[in-house]
């Protein structure tokens, strides 16, 4: 126990502070925070759907929750059920096996909801294009609000994508 506490104290807060240099990243982050606050009461629940990706995108998405990026500070967190989600984060070229699953996940999410398709595969099916196992890009299965390009996209891009999607949140 004492060793653990010592370690915690020594490391301090690992999350990158916002008031560093006024970089691009920080601006994005600020905007996300402001927008989530305005639109969702600063609470955005994300359900991640891996529709056949190579897991490259997942690695970056996971990075969003680590102490460095700590998406939780903006009220963005990942949930275990689409019933709890506001936004679906879909990765990968949609394989034929995952087609139904993706559709059902979309169906299971309560309105209002958003879909962000992550990675190049999600838009163009990438190198998997034309394979017999592929059902098509994400937007052919479910309506997509925003595509995030990149193979894989960086966490910053992900945040930017989420931010853009939030613009489409229905005004009540």
């Amino acid at each position: 126990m004492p060793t653990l506490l010592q370690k915690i104290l020594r490391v301090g807060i690992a999350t990158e502070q916002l008031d560093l240099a006024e970089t691009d990243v920080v601006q994005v982050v600020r905007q996300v925070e402001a927008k989530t606050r305005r639109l969702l009461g600063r609470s955005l629940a994300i359900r991640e759907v891996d529709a056949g990706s190579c897991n490259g995108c997942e690695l970056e998405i996971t990075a969003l929750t680590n102490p460095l990026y700590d998406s939780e500070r903006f009220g963005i967190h990942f949930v275990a059920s689409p019933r709890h989600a506001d936004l679906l984060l879909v990765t990968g070229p949609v394989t034929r096996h995952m087609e139904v699953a993706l559709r059902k996940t979309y169906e299971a999410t309560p309105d209002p909801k958003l879909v962000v398709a992550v990675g190049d595969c999600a838009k163009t099916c990438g190198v998997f294009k034309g394979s017999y196992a592929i059902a098509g890009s994400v937007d052919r299965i479910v309506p997509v609000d925003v595509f995030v390009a990149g193979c894989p996209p960086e966490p910053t891009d992900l945040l930017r994508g989420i931010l853009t999607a939030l613009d489409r949140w229905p005004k009540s």
Partner: protein
Amino acid sequence: MMQTLFLLTICAYSLGALGAILGGRGQLGRSLVGALAAIGATAGLLLGLTVIFTGQSFTAFVPALLPVGGGLALRLDPLGAFFLSVIGVVAIPASLYGIAYNEIYESERGSLRLLGAMFNLFLLAMSLVTLADNVFTFLLMWEGMSLTSYFLVITESDEAETIRAGNWYIAVTHVGVAFLVAAFLMLTGNASGAFSDLRVHASNLSPLARDLVFLLTLLGFGSKAGIIPLHVWLPRAHPAAPSYVSALMSGVMIKLGIYGLLRVALDFLGGGPAWWGVLVLVVGSVSAVLGVLYALMEHDLKRLLAYHSVENIGIILMGIGAGLLFHSYGSMSLAVLGLVGGLYHTLNHASFKGLLFLGAGSVLHATGTRNMEEMGGLMKRMPWTALFFLIGAAAISALPPLNGFVSEWLVFQALLKGLNIPGIEAAIAMPLAVGMLALTSGLAAACFVKAFGITFLAMPRSHEAESARESPLLMRIGMGMLAAICVVLGPGAIAVIPLLSRILVGLGGLAEVPVSLTEGVSLQVPTSSSQIALPTLALALLLAIGSIPVILKLLRVNFRLRRSESWGCGLTELTPRMEYTATAFAEPLRRVFAELYRPSKELTIDTHPESKYFVQSIAYRSEITPWFDRMLYTPLLHLIGYIANKIRRLQSGLVHLYLLYLALALMGLIFASRWIER
């Protein structure tokens, strides 16, 4: 007035029995037989209530009938009247329910005549047990009750299992009767068999004889009540009997064991040393915990309920044991607390267990199976049955503000007060009893989540469940009556409890003034500030639950609702085979209590001949043999079988030899009687 009610009870039941033998088929016949039973039960209930309210006993003496045993002596005092009323509470709905339920026996299955007649006679015998005022009448009616219920158990005699259940029942019951006869013989001595003489004679018995009488009655009545390990007949006989008969047997008949125990231990013997109370408490705790633990492992809906009867008898006995313990220490007001807790639980158990058995019967009627693994989704197909079963399930799980909670609260309070009793046996027994009672109620809640959830919720697991239909109106009325009683007896406890404490007035040296357990709308524990006001609580709860939607509406919360498939993690189709089963639901508890259950496991995996990585089928089989079967009854049956085999040598088939046996027995008896004379 009382005379009329009494005669009406007797006549209605007798006519019912007669009518069933003469006709009793067809819609009209069935209705007539059932209605007569209901009338008899109503009259009995009214008679019981009259005696309780006026506090005056009702007596009837017919010396000409049964002259050998001292005549047919009947007397209904408040204690008996309470149990007579309990019979009425369950018998009225059960009779009405039976009218519709019996339709399945119109065809060849079982004899409707026998069923109707035995049903009425069973009710009559039970009623007269509470009225009996001498030993002979009591034992005769007790035996009549056992025999008629035996015939009711084997109604569906085309099934081998039913016959076996009947055999178990009749065997255990008669072992019990043997204990009772011995106990009553010791109690009677040279006196006449009248109960008033018994009271006098009991006070002259030596302490050792009193202890022996107590033990014999505990065993005798315990076998009827279903204490562990004498409960083995319950999980066998209850599923076999028609459901409304199970409701009566479990709701009422086993309670007459409690009646007998109270009558002898408290009334005749006037209480005893502390260890009587501790013994009853221990027996009660063990029955309660083991009953519910084995109930959890059952997937046969009616067997599950039968094991719960064992559990609830345990809870009743815990109250009574605490009462006897306080009685022996002379703290009479606390003794009343424990006894009232036990008695109130008797009434409550009668109502909710009756209800649950009727509900299980309704499910059986609709699906034709008792196996929970083949049910599911009945909520939408049988909404009324589901609602009533839910009320029963909540009541038996002791959820406030229903009736089961009140009686468990009383028993809890009695046990908590018991912690203050000096003496090391109480200091050890009481905390364990508190823990076991709490464990019991927690496990009961878990078990009824299983029973209700698997049976009624989600998707149907079989074709039968899929095509189930709601039961006929009369069956729903029967269940509805009991459900209403369960709800009313919760907050209504403040009206019933004073009556219960009045019943106990003067019994076995309890105070002549009824102990007040209520104050205003509160239930109040004597010599303590523990109290609950159930009506206020119920009101607060209803208000809290009811006002939430209103407040949400006022807050303009989003009320849109969309129906969609269940979230199955994106599965193509969620089929009933993927649902959680009753076995799976109980699995964690089976593991937790593995040391007790010692389940046998058998796992067979068939793989493809080419490669062991391709599994073709997996079969899993796990069985639990209750330890009392394993350790007590199996050896016992072997022993009896062994002895019977030896005795077979006596059977030669020669008439001369049999005559010799007769002569020898006669001579032996003569000598024996001379020896007893001396």
